[in-house]
């Protein structure tokens, strides 16, 4: 499930984002994960969260489209009875965000440098110990990758990333205008 060492997700490897609206029932995540392992599809990251409708959850999966054609992944996923709908997003069509929590070595000698770096990346310091700090940062996954590599030389104590969530980019014309022009054509 995790990227190979030295491979930052979203850079070297072809990936695609699949978001599935699923029924909010026990065992649904196991069905999705089971399907991926059974069919030999690789997952880079996976995030599950409730939606505004309590009957459904949304699973955001970043899939390796070198392991299997995207179409096959989507069609197999769509066969699961608990999967209600699927949206595929190419990375260039998506707004992607990921959250990072990271504890870094930050003794007196390097504390200022770490604070400066966090500032540049618009992160927040949420906890400070005598020689360590914990940082939170949300942003596009590539940006988080960059921060992670820049902060690594200071000494990463612990790191957690949530896996990405994504929504499609909006069309430049607003949906309302789009609707009006459609009506005009129809008339």
């Amino acid at each position, binding site marked *: 499930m995790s990227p190979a060492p030295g491979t930052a997700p979203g850079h070297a490897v072809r990936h695609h984002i699949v978001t599935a609206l*699923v*029924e909010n029932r026990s*065992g649904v995540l*196991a*069905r999705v994960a*089971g*399907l991926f392992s*059974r069919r030999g599809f690789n997952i880079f990251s996976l995030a599950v969260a409730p939606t505004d409708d309590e*009957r459904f959850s949304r699973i955001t999966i970043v899939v390796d489209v070198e392991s299997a*054609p995207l*179409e*096959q992944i989507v*069609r*197999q996923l*769509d*066969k*699961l*009875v*608990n*999967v*209600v*709908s699927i949206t595929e997003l190419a990375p260039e069509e998506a707004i992607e965000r990921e959250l990072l929590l990271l504890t870094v070595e930050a003794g007196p000698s390097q504390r200022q440098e770490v604070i400066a770096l966090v500032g540049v990346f618009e992160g927040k310091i949420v906890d400070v110990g005598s020689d360590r700090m914990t940082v939170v940062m949300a942003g596009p996954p590539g940006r988080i990758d960059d921060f992670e590599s820049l902060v690594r030389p200071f000494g990463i104590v612990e790191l957690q990333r949530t896996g990405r969530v994504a929504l499609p980019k909006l069309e430049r014309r607003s949906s309302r205008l789009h609707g009006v022009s459609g009506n005009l054509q129809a008339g």
Partner: protein
Amino acid sequence: MRLTGAQALIKSLEMQGVEVIFGLPGGAILPVYDPILDSSIRHVLVRHEQGAGHMAEGYAHVTGRPGVAMVTSGPGATNIVTPLADAAMDSIPMVVITGQVATTAIGTDAFQECPITGVTMDITKHNWLVTDAQDLPRVVAEAFHVATTGRPGPVLVDVPKDVSNAPMDWYWPSSMDELDLPGYHPRTEGDPAEVRRAAELIAQARRPVIYAGGGILKARAAEALRQLAERTGIPVVTTLMARGAFPDRHPLCLGMPGMHGNYTAVTAMQHADLLLALGSRFDDRVTGKVSAFAPGAKIVHVDIDPAELGKVRRPDVGIVGDCRLVIEELLGVLGAGEGPDLEPWMAQLRTWQAQYPLSYTQEEGGALKPQFVVETLRDMTPDDTIVVAGVGQHQMWASQYWRFDHPYTWVNSGGAGTMGFAVPAAIGAKVGRPDRMVWAVDGDGCFQMTAQELVTASAERIPVKVAILNNAYLGMVRQWQELFYEERYSEVYLSPDLPDYVKWAEAMGCVGLKVESADEVAPAIEKANGIDDRPVVIDFRTDAFEKVYPMVPAGAANDDIIVGPSQGEGGR
């Protein structure tokens, strides 16, 4: 009306029109067995839960209605895992009800607890763990709906004991709207634009072949297929799962393709310029080496399962839909044969058929050939006889040498290759079609796996007939060891007379007969055909050295087909 969960479950099965349950009771399913005493549904008490599953499959194969099996929790449930996997591979509609320990005990490693919904998640179309008795009628209705619509398949409903015992207010979902399946909408009608594109390809093809799969039978599309073939003049191959979907006697029928298909069916596909794949899935046993399969063919692929389109071979035209509906749409847009003349192609096919027929030699006084047994059986039984096979050499000989002229007369384990399938599946088939003669053609290895279900058949007066092609070996494995492992025979010898099949048959309440030579074959079959009050088992002692030909070695290209021992590098 107040009912217990158990009563509601049985009443729900009645509402679904279930006429028979194959099952075996135990602790966790005990409450559900009580209302069976008061139900109109017949219960067939099996001797092993695997038998219940295969019986339900056999029943579903021949009737088109979902087979129903009921077993208890834990080992009862795990014993039916193989039939579930088998039904999933062959898209057989089946509903399995399992007992479960009480909801309060789930997760505590209670006696006979097994998380069967987790175990069967990947080998069912869907499964349910019912935690509230009030949900039971709805879940049963959902289970039958999912099992029988779209691409059919097995489903499992796990019912904890306290749910069976709990009271509920009876209701029955009166429409689809009352089912809770927001993510399940199988598509049945083909996209008209794609259907037109398919028709255009058909109109241009000079060497077309219809590659008919099991989906034709699932869609009840045999008649539509016949019309399509006759209207277009396109020859038809019928896969192992589609034997009978197009009559073998029809001049356009080329028979079975694949690893043990006949030369003409295999080679026609290799030389085709268009494959019209209808309800078939480009299984590795059909394609051989995929990159070398039908290299010059454009592909029109019709399947109700969208995931089949492009899974193995990318189609030029892919149509998601029910085979019968799509063929009917196709018939609606096809012109009246203004395409290229297919006669040169048909002439080529007839040449191959004449040049490379299936063949074997039954020498007078020589060892009994299994193919001779199958042919004699075929010639001595009504042509709507249902033939049920296990898995291995006998299965291939049955498929090759029988002449299937009617749909739903061939029952076998195709995708999963489940040894031991034949005896219980034949029993299920006979329950579903008591008016038909049902013959299991089995191997000695297969027979030993599930033979005890003949006790069930005797006790329940289900007069199936079993022809054991007894070559004293795990024959197909033996064949591979002979051809591909330098005749190093590892753990394949079974002995011809241990067990004594006649005594064993008699001990199970059947008539047992033994046949050792070719001239005894017909009299034994005649005797068996005359017995209709109990099962019959005939132990045919066949030639252990006979191999299944033609053969495309595993992983080889279909062009490398070995027609028979005289041409084969591995022949004797």
